[in-house]
């Protein structure tokens, strides 16, 4: 088709075109989808009515990381859910937790959703990670299965791209729209950090937190002097550290999980001993201190959870430690997970009806009942708005610093 010369000209053309596309994509920047408030319009959720035969358990699903680096987040959460369902019966039917490992990934979230729907769950706690939530939402919506995440904090699940809010999604934790600004305020007012370098996971959680923090930080008068993304499982942060060293920020802000924060902070501390380090809920985990050792010292972490003071948290915490042998604050979101399961079970108790020896559950009514929840839960007050956002709490962000190998809560 091409002569020799033609072929090489074609190759040049192809190369130039691909390079131009790379540049265009690189300069395009991210779309600003952070619309605020506004009217909430739901898509069409496929609510059905399900029947459960006599003697069969009611199945509640769980989707979260149960193997891999982030097992340390997913496993304690599952234990808390199982605790909430333990020994509970609804009109003679026991409750069974069906757990699926989604590895905290988008692919995993979608495939766990498929599996859980096939298992015939009536509701789901999870997914745990925002990346998985975003990937799984359409499936749950289509099947009319309400899912309550105890830990997905990203902006996107409650502000989806296409404008229609998912009716089947709710969360018992708080959005990064709250965590990001709280971190920014802390960085400026308490730490006195005027410049920040932002390092983020490129998934829905990392980019969401990055945007929320950056916006609030700049509004507070801070300056973001650079930002770089990374992929999950990346271990080579050397080039990023060199860029940070060059930019000389007061603060390094990390939006991601402890699995990458651990190698990152080791490489950062090898060259910059004194720069302040601030990260969110994905890093606030005992695994971070275990992995990073002395390099974790002095790191600041935030958690979109209230300062747990309620009696319900104490009761839950004691029970959790007794039943599972895991410390109540070793990993975040266990109280939120207990509450998410409780919210679902309470609604089931009200909605489930006996009919001809079978248990009949109207998924639409279940969804409505869950949305009407008002609970004084282990993690604080829980009440949902139309987007599925928890609006119950009063001081929904707490801050910590690593001191002597432990997280110490800071006074606010």
């Amino acid at each position: 088709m091409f002569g020799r010369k033609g072929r090489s000209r074609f190759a040049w053309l192809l190369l130039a075109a691909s390079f131009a596309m790379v540049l265009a994509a690189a300069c395009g920047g991210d779309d600003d989808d952070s619309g605020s408030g506004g009217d909430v319009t739901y898509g069409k959720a496929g609510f059905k009515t399900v029947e459960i035969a006599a003697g069969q358990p009611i199945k509640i699903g769980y989707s979260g990381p149960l193997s891999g680096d982030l097992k340390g987040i997913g496993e304690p959460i599952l234990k808390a859910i199982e605790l909430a369902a333990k020994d509970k019966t609804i009109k003679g039917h026991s409750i069974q937790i069906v757990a699926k490992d989604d590895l905290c990934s988008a692919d995993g979230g979608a495939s766990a959703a498929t599996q859980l729907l096939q298992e015939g769950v009536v509701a789901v706690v999870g997914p745990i990670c925002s990346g998985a939530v975003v990937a799984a939402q359409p499936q749950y919506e289509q099947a009319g299965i309400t899912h309550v995440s105890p830990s997905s904090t990203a902006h996107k699940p409650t502000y989806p791209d296409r404008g229609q809010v998912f009716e089947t999604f709710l969360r018992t934790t708080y959005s990064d729209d709250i965590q990001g600004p709280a971190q920014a305020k802390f960085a400026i007012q308490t730490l006195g950090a005027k410049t920040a370098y932002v390092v983020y996971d490129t998934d829905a959680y990392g980019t969401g937190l990055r945007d929320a923090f950056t916006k609030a930080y700049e509004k507070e008068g801070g300056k973001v002097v650079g930002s770089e993304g990374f992929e999950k499982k990346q271990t080579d942060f050397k080039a990023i550290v060199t860029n940070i060293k060059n930019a000389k920020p007061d603060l390094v802000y990390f939006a991601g999980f402890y699995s990458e924060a651990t190698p990152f902070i080791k490489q950062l501390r090898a060259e910059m001993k004194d720069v302040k380090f601030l990260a969110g809920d994905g890093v606030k985990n005992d695994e971070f201190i275990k992995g990073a050792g002395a390099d974790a010292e002095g790191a600041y972490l935030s958690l979109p959870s209230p300062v747990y003071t309620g009696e319900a948290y104490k009761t839950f915490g004691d029970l959790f430690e007794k039943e599972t042998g895991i410390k109540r604050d070793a990993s975040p979101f266990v109280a939120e997970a207990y509450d998410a399961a409780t919210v679902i079970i309470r609604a089931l108790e009200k909605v489930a009806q006996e009919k001809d020896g079978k248990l009949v559950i109207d998924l639409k009514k279940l969804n409505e009942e869950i949305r009407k929840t008002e609970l004084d839960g282990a993690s604080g007050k829980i009440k949902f708005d139309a987007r599925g956002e928890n609006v119950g709490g009063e001081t929904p962000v707490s801050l910590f610093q690593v001191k002597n190998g432990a997280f110490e809560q800071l006074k606010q």
Partner: protein
Amino acid sequence: MPVALTLSVSFWSDQFVNGLTTGSLYALIALGYTMVYGVLKMINFAHGEVFMLGSFAGYGALVAMGGNELSGPVIALAILGAVIVAMSASVSASVVIERLAYRPLRGAPRLAPLISAIGVSIFLQYLVLEQTSARAKFYPDIFPRGSIGAGPFEITYIQLFLIASSVAMMALLYAVIQRTRLGRAIRAVAENPTNASLMGVDVNRTIVFVFILGAAMAGVAGVLYGLFFQTIRGSMGFIPGIKAFTAAVLGGIGSIPGAMAGGYVLGLAETVGRELLNELPGVNLGNQWRDVIAFTLLVTILIFRPTGIFAQRSTTRA
């Protein structure tokens, strides 16, 4: 988001050192690909996993010797011990793989050993992922921190150690290939196995030695990787494996100097190359772009120089 970099000399020298560091690792691993290709005309896709196994063996050795508790001059001995253990592990794995997965397919069509190699790669990767429940392990943090240098030119001890030991290993390998009987046999087999066997070279034995040499390099790379990045996991072999393969192709697959050069070119392109592109007005390529840059480079070079930078002189063999 604008990145305001006041690009200083020290910045460029740091990035250059970073490029040399990753480049050294790529080069060490790439040698295994290129040598096996040289004698068998086969791409050993399990080589990334041989590297991974070496890294895990080195980790096990360091932990057994005391891990984070090690201090003082003992550290040097411990690292040497870890390197030896890692090399032995990689070499044994590689020899077993060759015997079980490649040799029975010696006469088969070229795709068969390739598929077999991919199978071995996936098998080993998931075996280790399963054994570690897919969680990362952290290398003991024993290498002394700090750096050496003058003015804007600085290099951390670990980076200096990594680059120096890679270069030493490569020099050693090059001497073995060029100066010894074994090396001559390897070169003869690479040129023409039938002729070599007619001249009295034991072809099967020579091929095993090629696997041994390549795996030893990968084992060293495994420990260096662990000491430097400190995080290892069962899937760690995949990306460095692909990158090293790229480096081997870039340099001209089959060529030993080519693999070394390819490794460094790739390492520098990813770090210094990306920052150079960022100097262009309006360009801001984040860290995630480094793979795009690496593979764009590969495609570009292959379009204009299909045999790689160091093209083999004799490519007549079918």
